């Protein structure tokens, strides 16, 4: 077990290294002088010279990368061009908001996805199964940003039940766990939950169908030990894989929340990315991408380790 964890960790290091190179290169693949990418257009000559020295833009790329990694490891992700504030502090609150949204969406998606998948797998090839399959195809085919708009049209514009945008009244970004704020969370979370729902449903359906086709389960069913015993057995055997899929989906949602956050003006990392793109704020873009990608790498690692603890047969290298 320990050797597996160590091995898995050792495999993560080169990946994290590669991810950092890709993020570092973002500023350099941008058209034009990288200096103009990280400075506001009206920066003074003195500021330009300072920044050039600070980032080492006059030095060779590997040196620049080294400097950048050193700064990043100290928690310095650069300064936002648009706001003039450090990227790290901009990210702090946004990351919390995105995490809240993504975790809730994953939970909703997991709950309904497992339910659909379980029912479909249990009554395989029945009309329920076909319906569930169809729903999960819709789930993976629908442009979620459009689904968000449609939900806003129905529940905000037409029915006026829920707010269309923001995380609190009057566009305030301060979160509180009261109805006034939670109301704002419902539509984006439900929209986002559709992304993992279809995939979890498919996974659970396949798992349940496979477990039920095992001989001794058919035996249990034949003996009339149907419902609860079989149910417990299926849950016990399907849980590790289903949980792993859920963990990975959480990672995808964290990284892929930008479109939904844009639709709902949800003050998270995706919204921050949207702003960075709109204002061509490359330090903000780079910092946000780096943090989200590293989050994803770490989550992958955790999922693999937890899954291998739950089910030692699964040791993905």
């Amino acid at each position, binding site marked *: 077990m320990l050797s597996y964890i160590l091995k898995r960790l050792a495999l993560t290091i080169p990946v994290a290294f590669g991810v950092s190179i890709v993020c570092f290169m973002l500023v350099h693949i941008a058209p034009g002088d990288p200096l103009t990418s990280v400075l506001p257009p009206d920066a003074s000559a003195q500021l330009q010279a300072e920044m050039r020295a600070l980032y080492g833009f006059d030095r060779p790329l590997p040196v620049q990368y080294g400097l950048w990694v050193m700064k990043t490891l100290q928690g310095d992700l650069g300064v936002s061009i648009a706001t003039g504030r450090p990227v790290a502090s901009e990210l702090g609150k946004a990351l919390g908001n995105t995490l809240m949204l993504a975790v809730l969406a994953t939970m909703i998606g997991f709950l309904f996805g497992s339910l659909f998948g379980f029912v479909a797998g249990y009554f395989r090839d029945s009309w329920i199964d076909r319906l569930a399959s169809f729903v999960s195809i819709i789930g993976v085919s629908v442009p979620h940003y459009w689904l968000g708009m449609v939900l806003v049209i129905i529940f905000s514009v037409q029915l006026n039940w829920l707010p269309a945008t923001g995380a609190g009244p009057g566009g305030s970004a301060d979160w509180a766990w009261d109805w006034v704020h939670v109301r704002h969370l419902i539509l984006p979370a439900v929209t986002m939950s559709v992304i993992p729902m279809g995939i979890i449903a498919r996974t659970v359906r396949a798992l349940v169908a496979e477990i039920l086709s095992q001989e001794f389960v058919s035996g249990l069913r034949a003996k009339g030990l149907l419902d609860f015993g079989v149910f417990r057995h299926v849950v016990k055997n399907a849980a590790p894989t289903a949980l792993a899929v859920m963990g990975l989906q959480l990672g995808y949602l964290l*990284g892929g929340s930008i479109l939904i956050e844009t639709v709902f003006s949800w003050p998270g990392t995706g919204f921050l990315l949207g702003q960075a793109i709109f204002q061509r704020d490359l330090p903000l873009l780079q910092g946000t991408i780096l943090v989200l990608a590293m989050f994803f790498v770490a989550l992958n690692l955790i999922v693999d380790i937890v899954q291998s603890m739950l089910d030692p047969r699964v040791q993905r290298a």
Partner: protein
Amino acid sequence: MSAAAPALTAIAAIEKSPGYWAGVIRRFRRDPVAMAALIIVLALVLMAIFAPLIAPADPYRSSMIRRLRPIGTPGFPLGTDELGRDMLSRLIHGGRLSLLMGVTPVFIAFFIGSAIGITAGFVGGKVNTVLMRTIDVFFAFPSVLLAIALSGALGAGIFNGLLSLTIVFVPPIARIAESVTTAVRKIEYIEAARASGASAFRIVRIHVLGNVIGPIFVYATGLISVSLILASGLSFLGLGVKPPEPEWGLMLNTLRNAIYVQPWVAALPGLMIFITSISFNLLSDGLRSAMDIKA
């Protein structure tokens, strides 16, 4: 080929079995859902190609006095957008860029990814390790994030959008190509071909390609729907296609503020993306079962 062979073949014609692809086509035709998806996809492609002939009006002609008319307005069956342009014409024309932006990256990535994956799988060893570890780095990004990171840094524009999406889809295709090639390489007919003294290139061309390209192709068709959603998503964020070009994602973006005035007109471009995406998904599923490829 057999027609050219003299001697024995001259006595009687060789009985030809229907090939693999004949069977695939036969099975595909028996699948009503897949056939329906194929017809929709073909209709969308034809619509895009012949957009100027089909569209009733000029998709660029705006008018300040007839902005945001509802669906069913005489002369504007699907209403008008925020600049008074005919929605029906813009939706028809929008298919050109949306399909181009959605399908092209997967198409290019199919060739690049297959080349990388087949090379890695067939050569194995250190070449495999280097190629696949590099691919793993790109896998460490959620696809949406990678697309946005690249096109965000490169800036808006059709070419930058296509480039970013292509980079996003090469790794998953390369990974599938590598795993099917590695599996095929271990089968004995490859050993038999090696024992015949054939060059690696010839073995790949005759014995590997025919057996791996099907599964890779089906996997790639499954990515088209993701690519369509992502491509339109980029335009929706102000990356990719720039105004005033008609493109479904961009239209959805510019109409976003109109949801309080003409909500259903504003939702139309998204419906087009949805229909296209689900058709490609069903088409891919149909191909998968017709070609008898597991998972």
